[in-house]
C-alpha cells in the first residue's frame, strides 16, 4: 500500500514508522492536508505504522480534533465555555441550528456550513463568542448570529 500522503508529500517533516508516538502527529498532518481523515488515508496510516485500522480509528474517534467527514465551506464554531454559557451561548447555538436546519454539530446538506459547539475559545471577555472561518465575533446575540449566517448566504448567492 502507498504511504500516507502526509509522509510522501514531505511537507510535514519526517515520521519514523517504528515510533508509535507518531500516530497522532501523522493524523494531525493528514487532517491539515485534507481537512479531515479520508478513509484511504486511515488505511495507509495503519499500514505504514504496522497497526490495525481499528486501532487507528480508535485513536481518531477518541480525540475531539479529528473528523472523519469533510468540513463544510464555512466553519462555524459556537463557543460553549463556561463564560459563554452563562451569557446565553446555548440560545445562540439553538438559533444557528434552527436557521441551518441542523440537529446538532454537523454539516448542511449543501456542504456550505459546518457548525460545531466547542469547549472554550479562550476569549471569555467577549462572551458569548462565535468563530466563523477563524474570525471571532464577540458579544453575540441571537439576531447578530442570524445576520452572520444570512450575510454568508447572501454572499454565496451572489457568487462571491
Amino acid at each position: 500500500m502507498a504511504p500516507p500522503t502526509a509522509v510522501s508529500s514531505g511537507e510535514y517533516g519526517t515520521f519514523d514508522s517504528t515510533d508509535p508516538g507518531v500516530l497522532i502527529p501523522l493524523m494531525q498532518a493528514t487532517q491539515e492536508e485534507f481537512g479531515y481523515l479520508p478513509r484511504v488515508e486511515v488505511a495507509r496510516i495503519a499500514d505504514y505504522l504496522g497497526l490495525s485500522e481499528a486501532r487507528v480509528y480508535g485513536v481518531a474517534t477518541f480525540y475531539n480534533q479529528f473528523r472523519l467527514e469533510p468540513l463544510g465551506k464555512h466553519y462555524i464554531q459556537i463557543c460553549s465555555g463556561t463564560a459563554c454559557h452563562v451569557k446565553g451561548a446555548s440560545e445562540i447555538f439553538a438559533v444557528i441550528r434552527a436557521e441551518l436546519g441542523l440537529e446538532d454539530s454537523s454539516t448542511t446538506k449543501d456542504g456550505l456550513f459546518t457548525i460545531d459547539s466547542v469547549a472554550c475559545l479562550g476569549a471569555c471577555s467577549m462572551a458569548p463568542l462565535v468563530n466563523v472561518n477563524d474570525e471571532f465575533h464577540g458579544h453575540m446575540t441571537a439576531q447578530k448570529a442570524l445576520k452572520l449566517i444570512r450575510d454568508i448566504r447572501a454572499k454565496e448567492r451572489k457568487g462571491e
Partner: protein
Amino acid sequence: MNSNKRITTIIVGTGTCGLAAGARIVHDYFADKIAEEPEGSYRLKKTGCLGYCTMEPIVDVELSGWPRVSFGPVTLEGAELIWDMVSGGAELPRDIVLGTHADAEGIHELHDIPTLWETPFFRHQKRLVLKNSGIIDPESLDEYLESGGYRGLKRTVEMTPREVVDEVKESGLRGRGGAGFPTGLKWQFAHDAPGDQKYIICNADEGDPGAFMDRSILEGDPHAVIEGLAIAAYAIGASKGYIYCRAEYPLAIRRLTDAIEQAEEAGYLGDNILGTDFSFELLIKKGAGAFVCGEETALIASIEGKRGMPRPRPPYPAQSGLWGKPTNINNVETIANVPFILADGAEAFRKHGTEKSPGTKVFALAGKVKRSGLVEAPMGMTLKEIIFDIGGGVQGDKEFKAVQIGGPSGGCLPRELLDTRVDYDSLIEAGAMMGSGGMVVMDEDTCMVDVAKFFLEFTASESCGKCLPCREGVARLKETLNSIVKAHRDESPEESLLRFQGVTMMEELAGVIQDSAACGLGQTAPNPILSTLKYFRDEYDAHVFERRCPSGVCTALLEYYIDPELCTGCGLCVRKCPDDAILGEKRHPHYISTEKCISCGTCRQFCPFGAIKVR
C-alpha cells in the same frame, strides 16, 4: 529595554484575545502609517497579553521623554488619534488612556495620569508569573534576558540537582494545575527514581472551559516556560522534555517553536547548556483535544500515540511514566514560577501568599463581571477582593449570585462565602477547588441547576469510558439533571418513577462516583452538583416541586405565547418551529398550541418583533 527609547515605538498586544478583539486591524493600520515615514523613525512591536481583556485591543506607546503609556480599548478611530499624537503632536487621547508604565521619575506632562499598576484592575494584583506578559516582546530573547531571564538557569547549573530540588521544596510551590501537590516533592520522586533515561513533560493541554491563563503565559512569555523546564530537567536528570500543548492554541505553539530555536542557538537548550555537560532537548507535542489528558497517565498515553485513557497509579509517573521511564509532569503555570524561585531564592518566593500556599495564582476572571481578564493574585486573597476590587463587581449592577471556581472539577460558591480565602485548602473546605484557575462570576439571571447541568454534560462527553463509575454514573447524573429541567407533558408513568428515583438518589450517586472513579476527572465530576445542592438547594426545589426556573433560564419550564398586539403574522416562527406548534393565517396574529409546544424557545429567538412572550 530603554536603550532605543528615542525612537518612537508603538506596541500592539497581539495575544489571542487581543487579536479576537481586532488587534490585527490596529496593528496593520500602524504598519501602513509607519511604512509611509522615513525608515528608522518609528518602530512597531508586538507583545503578549496584558491580561486586561475587557480593554483589548491594547496599544502601548513609547515616546521620547515620556514613560510608556498604555491605551485601550483601541479601535481604528483610537488608533488614528494615537497616530496623530505620535506623528503630529496632537493631544493625548485621554479617554482611552489606561495608565503609564514608569515609576515617578522622568515624567512630565503626564504627572496626573496614574501608572497602570495604580489603577483598580492592577492595584491589588501581584505579578510574578505574568510580569513579562504584555510588557516584553515574546518573540525576542533579548527582551526576556533584559527582564532578568535565564538568571535562574544560570544559578541552577552551578548547584547540584539535589540542591535545586531542595530549593523548590523549600519554596513551598504547589502544582498550579489543580490538586496542589508540592512540586518539590514531585521532583524529588523523579530525582530519586533510578534510570538512565528520564523525561520531563509540561502539561499545556488547557482544556478547562473558561480558563486561558496557560495560553497567555505561553503566548506572552514563552521563554519563562522553557527556562523553567530546563531547570526542572536539570533537577531530576532528564535529557528530553515535551510540551504537550493544545492544538487549538496555534499562536502559542508558534511562539514556543520560535523560542525553543532561539534558546538552542543561545545555548540555553540543546547540548552542553551554558558550557556545562548538562544537555536537554525540548520538543512540542500537539494535543488532539481530550479533557481527560490533563490527567498525568492519560497525557502520557496520548504522547505514546494511544487513546488518552488514565491507568491506575501506582506506579506513579515518577517511577514509570513515558515509555516506562521516570517522568515528571508539571503544569505551565507551575513551571513558569520556577525561574523566579531559582533566580531569587525560595525565601523571596515565600514572601508572597500564605504559609501553606506560597506565591500567587493566576485566574481567568470572566462571566458577568465588569472587568474581566487574567488576574494574578497572591494566595490568601479573598474572593470578594478578587471579584469586587479587581473585577469591579457584577455587570449592569445586577445581584451577585455565585462564583464558579475550578471548572468542571470545582464548585459554585455563594455570596455568604465571598470572604473565603483563595488558597488550596480553604477552597476545598468550602466545597470548590483551585482547579486550573477559571473563575466565572454569575448573577441573578444564572440558573444554578443549569450550570450544574452544563458541567455534567461536559464531563460526560469527556469521560474516557474506562471506569464504570465515571462512564455510567456521570451519564445518569446528567440524565437526572436533564429530567428536572424538562417539561413532562408526554411522560409515561414509568418515566415519572425513574425521574423520581433519579432525583432522590442524586446525592448518593454523586458520593459513590467521588469514592470509586479511577482518576481525577471522575472523582471530581460530581462537584458542580454537590456544591450547588449544598448552597442553592432552593433552586433545585423550585425546579423539582414547583416546575419553575426562578432565573428564567430553563426554557422548557416556561410557557410560550404570542402577544397579538405585536404579532404581524409574518409567519417566520411557523417556519422555524420544529414541532408545527404555531398556527395562524398570514398577516394575522398567530398563536401557539400549548399541546404541541415543546418549549424549545426557538420562535422567540427568531421573532423580529418581540411578539413571543413567556410566562
